[in-house]
């Protein structure tokens, strides 16, 4: 499909807004529908689309397997570390009240960081699944 001009050009136009939209969904998750999970899927969709058009190898150049396999646990690690951070501020695990100057801001920060972790893991998992399926040779 690499030779299909229409697809290639359109894709170039779509990719950037797609990633931007992912960030919007990510950051707007506090106020409207959205959050790390949805944002991760959208961002992954961008990479997957790129891979579909330009081939798996091209996608792998952007997000190599080694990075991917580190990103999956890294996201969970962010989530868990934020929880542990609560413990260091004198709260229980996953307690965010003391992360900022007051409880409301603390919760906001906590959830924001946690969502970032979710984003990373969901994104990398989705791309990973795509790689796994696309990488399969016919037996």
């Amino acid at each position, binding site marked *: 499909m690499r030779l299909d001009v229409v697809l290639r050009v359109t894709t170039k136009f779509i990719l950037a807004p797609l990633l931007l939209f992912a960030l919007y969904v990510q950051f707007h998750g506090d106020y409207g529908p959205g959050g790390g999970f949805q944002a991760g899927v959208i961002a992954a969709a961008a990479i997957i689309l790129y891979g579909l058009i330009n081939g798996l190898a091209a996608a792998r150049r952007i997000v190599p397997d*080694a990075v991917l*396999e*580190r990103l*999956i*646990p*890294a996201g*969970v*690690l962010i989530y*868990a570390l934020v*929880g*542990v951070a*609560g*413990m260091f501020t004198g*709260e*229980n*695990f*996953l*307690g*965010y*009240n003391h992360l900022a100057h007051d409880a409301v801001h603390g919760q906001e920060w906590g959830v924001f960081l946690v969502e970032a972790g979710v984003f990373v893991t969901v994104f990398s998992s989705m791309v990973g699944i795509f790689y796994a399926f696309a990488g399969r040779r016919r037996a």
Partner: protein
Amino acid sequence: MIAAHLPVLVVLLPLFGGLLAALSRHNEAAFWIALVASIATLAAAAALAGQVMAGGPISYRIGGWDPALGIEYRIDAVSAPILLLVAAMGVAAIVYARRSVTVEIIPERVAWYYTMMLICLAGLLGMAASGDAFNIFVFLEISSLSTYTLIALGRDRRALLAAYQYLIVGTIGATFYVIGVGLLYLSTGTLNFGLIVERLPEITSPRALIAAEAFIVVGIALKLALFPLHAWLPNAYAYAPSSATALLASTATKVAVYLLARYLFAVFGIQRSVGPISVADALMALSLLAMFAASLAAIFQNDIKRLLAFSSVAQIGYITLGLAIANEAGVTGAFLHIMNHALMKGAAFMAIGAILISAGSSKLDELAGIGRTMPVAAGALTVAGLALIGVPGTSGFVSKWYLVLGAIEAGRLWLAILIVASSVLAVLYVGRILEVIWFREPAKRSLEAQAVPLSLLAPTLVLAALTIWFGLDAGFPVELASSAAKALLGVSKGALP
């Protein structure tokens, strides 16, 4: 600061260990991370057990949220021994894994293997630590998913099939469980164990509750391989990598049994009649079936790993029988057997794993006379086998002693006789192994078997030694088990201690 957070640390430590091991992507590093994490987990579990024995139940609120809204972790006399057991077996399995994975796992996947072991540990520990029905489901899934991966990493091609079957069956079990939890939430409006128990008396129509019980019990029964829902287990254990088998056989089903005990004793009430029969009677019937049918099946196995797997199904029957007897001695026996069986079956699977690695087979007819060339591994297998029979001087005797005591105290002499009778079947299947490995002229494979490294045998020997030790000096496990039994049978019936 650490002491206060122990209930959650015991789950977080293996979780972080798993994440770091995955991040490292380096086999050697992953092992050391896994080792450190599992030892730290064991320390945390031991500290928790100490705190609980000294000061009673510990409650921990995740994020500081009230149990009505958030998740509560609750460690009490029932869960503390389970945490200790799982953490200890985790250390043993990981030490054992160091050498066994070099033979059994493709090198690129070794780091993943450690990750999955740790995640599985985290899931199992979470199931025991959490006091929230839905949170338990999450951990159930975490442990199950990692278990499927662990089994599928086995080199035998049949491992994939076994993992796939377990995946489907496990998912059915988890689905049943979560449906049951949903119904429970519907009737009580909460997911917290303590609150559920508090609100149970207010419920006027128990229909939904009975359905919840059916779903939850059958769901858990699938996970703990209660006869006749055990069929996924033999292949899963037989084809998984040795260290995974040792870990799963000694922890996964045990945690499920713990969960069953929790629900039956604290939430639903085990003596309650459902229609014409009581829950306890139904459980007892299935347990007896498991003890006899699975032992019988074990007698006809040729692969020692499968033989031991069938024996596990039978031994789980003993444990659930102890729960079904439902008096203090019986439940003590059940909890004792949870711990003792974990030790002996861990030792047995590790020993046969060592033999499999060295001689290249776990088939009974190919291992004739292996005792001559691998006396240490065969010795550990013998000790574990004797404990499976329940020979005096091994831990298996102590737990069966309490089970028989419980049966007699319940006024059911026939049950005591059946327990002893089923041991005779164990004599047969263990006797087959012993006869072949010690008394036959060495077969070709046996003669070619090479010495196995000490790090492979060390955990095996430790577990075998503990099996003997707890058979001679049963004070410590009996104390743990009897306080668990007292807590379950509880001061206030039907309420969590």
